[in-house]
């Protein structure tokens, strides 16, 4: 297994390098002068020259790329052009908020999607199945920025069940250790704060998790239907296992590889969708910050933010790859042969 993980790790190195260079080039090889953008139309040629030299923009692009990669190796992502704070520090304070939201959305999506998918497949052509199919189709067609606003209107404003925005109430204090408030509040033994965090997390996570829930449910249904008539499932039934055990232990485990692929790919959707969800719910994560950076054309911040989110996505896909081999050992052997 260690060999398999190592081999996988080496295959993502070119992708990581590709992403880094792509992000760099995306920001640098385009017409327009970042210094001009920063200083505005009325900047004097002298001040532009000074700023260009300060940012290293007077150097050829490959020198800039070299410097950027060198900086990356030591964790230096440069300074935000707008706020002049180190980009890495900004990311470090905001990333946990995005990560917590993404994970919560994925947990909700998996819970809803897997249950709905299994119900649909095991009760094929029943009213459950049709309801599940219709709901999942509606889910994948849903503009989440609209769904978020509707949820705020009904569940937060009209019914008052959930807070409208933010990560915690103003009166709640949580000492940030990991930055993941769910964990921090538990570690501190502060269950009231934990409840407050969950309360704030629910609506954004539901908004963000709707599309993945629908996709997971569709994939679970179709992939489970394919294996439900296999011999080993019949054998499970024949030896007298109760139906839910047959489905969970024999069918779902074998149907799970495509579902896992979908789950890992949906993380990409979640990390991207976080930009929209964070904007709607005033969530202090990377997504909203990145959007503000885009408005301000703060290229260092954009570079750092996009890079971190993409690296997270690649890492999650790597973890999924390792999980495949754990669930289905044949993959590991095929790879090594």
């Amino acid at each position, binding site marked *: 297994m260690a060999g398999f993980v190592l081999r996988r790790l080496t295959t993502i190195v*070119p*992708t990581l390098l*590709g*992403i880094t260079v*792509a*992000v760099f080039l*995306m*920001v640098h090889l*385009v017409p*327009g002068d970042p210094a001009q953008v920063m200083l505005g139309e009325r900047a004097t040629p002298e001040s532009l020259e000074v700023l260009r030299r300060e940012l290293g923009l007077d150097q050829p692009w490959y020198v800039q790329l070299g410097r950027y990669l060198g900086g990356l190796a030591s964790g230096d992502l440069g300074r935000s052009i707008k706020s002049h704070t180190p980009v890495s520090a900004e990311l470090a304070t905001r990333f946990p908020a995005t990560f917590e939201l993404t994970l919560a959305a994925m947990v909700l999506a998996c819970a809803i999607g897997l249950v709905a998918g299994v119900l649909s497949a095991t009760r094929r052509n029943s009213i459950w199945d049709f309801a599940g*199919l219709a709901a999942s*189709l*509606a889910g*994948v*067609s*849903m*503009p*989440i*920025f*609209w769904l978020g*606003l*509707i949820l*705020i*209107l009904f569940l937060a*404003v009209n019914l008052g069940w959930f807070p409208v925005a933010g990560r915690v109430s103003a009166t709640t204090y949580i000492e940030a250790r990991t930055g993941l408030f769910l964990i921090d509040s538990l570690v501190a033994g502060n269950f009231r704060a934990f409840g407050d965090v969950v309360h704030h997390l629910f609506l954004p996570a539901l908004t963000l998790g709707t599309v993945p829930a629908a996709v997971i449910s569709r994939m679970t249904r*179709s992939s489970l*239907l*394919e294996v439900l008539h296999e011999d080993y499932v019949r054998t499970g039934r024949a030896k007298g296992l109760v139906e839910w055990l047959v489905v969970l232990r024999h069918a779902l485990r074998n149907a799970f590889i495509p579902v896992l692929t979908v789950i890992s790919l949906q993380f*990409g*959707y979640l*990390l*991207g*969708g976080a*930009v*929209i969800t964070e*904007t*709607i719910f005033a969530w202090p994560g990377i997504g909203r910050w*990145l*959007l503000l950076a*885009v*408005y301000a*054309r703060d290229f260092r911040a*954009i570079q750092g933010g*996009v890079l971190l*989110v*993409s690296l997270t*996505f*690649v890492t999650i896909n790597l973890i999924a790859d390792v999980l495949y081999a754990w669930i289905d050992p044949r993959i590991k052997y095929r790879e090594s042969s």
Partner: protein
Amino acid sequence: MTSAGTGGLQHLWVRYRTNRSAVVGGGLLVLFLVVAAGVPWIATHDPLAQDLYGRLSAPSWDHLFGTDDFGRDIFSRVIHGSRISLKIGLAAVGVALSVGTLIGLIAGYKGGAVDQGLMRVMDVMLAFPSILLAIGIVAILGPGLNHAMLAVGIVAIPQYARLVRASTLTVREADYVQALRALGAGDVRILATAVLPNCVAPLMVQATLGLATSILDAAGLSFLGLGAQPPTPEWGAMLSGGRELILSAPWVLTYPGCAIFATVLSFNLLGDGLRDAFDPRRVSGE
């Protein structure tokens, strides 16, 4: 699929027609196209005309969907928005389909270093969350509807490239392609007459579902203020402009949202139906 002829088409139509969700999707889509074509006759007001005395009036006979904070008729704006959404979908899918198909054909047919190089670039593009890549592209090009369409199109290129490459790889060594080559056919002719027709079915499905995704993504970009700019009656931009009115005038948000949802739903239903019709195994295999 290539030699299907009219008999094959009829068979396809029968399979499509018996798929209930596909028929519903097709119906919704026809409605959408009729609305987009009939904009001048259906819209009751000028979508940009402001009426500051009639701001935020609730739905009524005069304003079916009410008015927004500038007193503009929301019904007419939603109707006009259908054309913009159709344009977005077609342009984005057009970019993705043409560039992606070309890359997939070249990669699959040439193989070797060309294939490796092109597909690694596609891999890197897929390593970005798609909406984030689109935001990045718009950040560079600058906000605006055309740039948003281009960004959404560029982001989708790898999907088409992978699809066409896979199809190309399977037919490249087929006997009839070898036969064409032996007869002295050039690369372009082989690609156009033997390879490309094999990709048509999966591409049609992908393009239909792609229309749904691009309309949704472009509306998302407009919602974030990176796509269509005010006062363009684009659905995402309308939602963005109406955000603050969620409590006082919910109708400002309701109808553009419903329009996006119904349009995306119709393309998704149609895409699913086409996939089932092209691949009977999926229906019986389930």
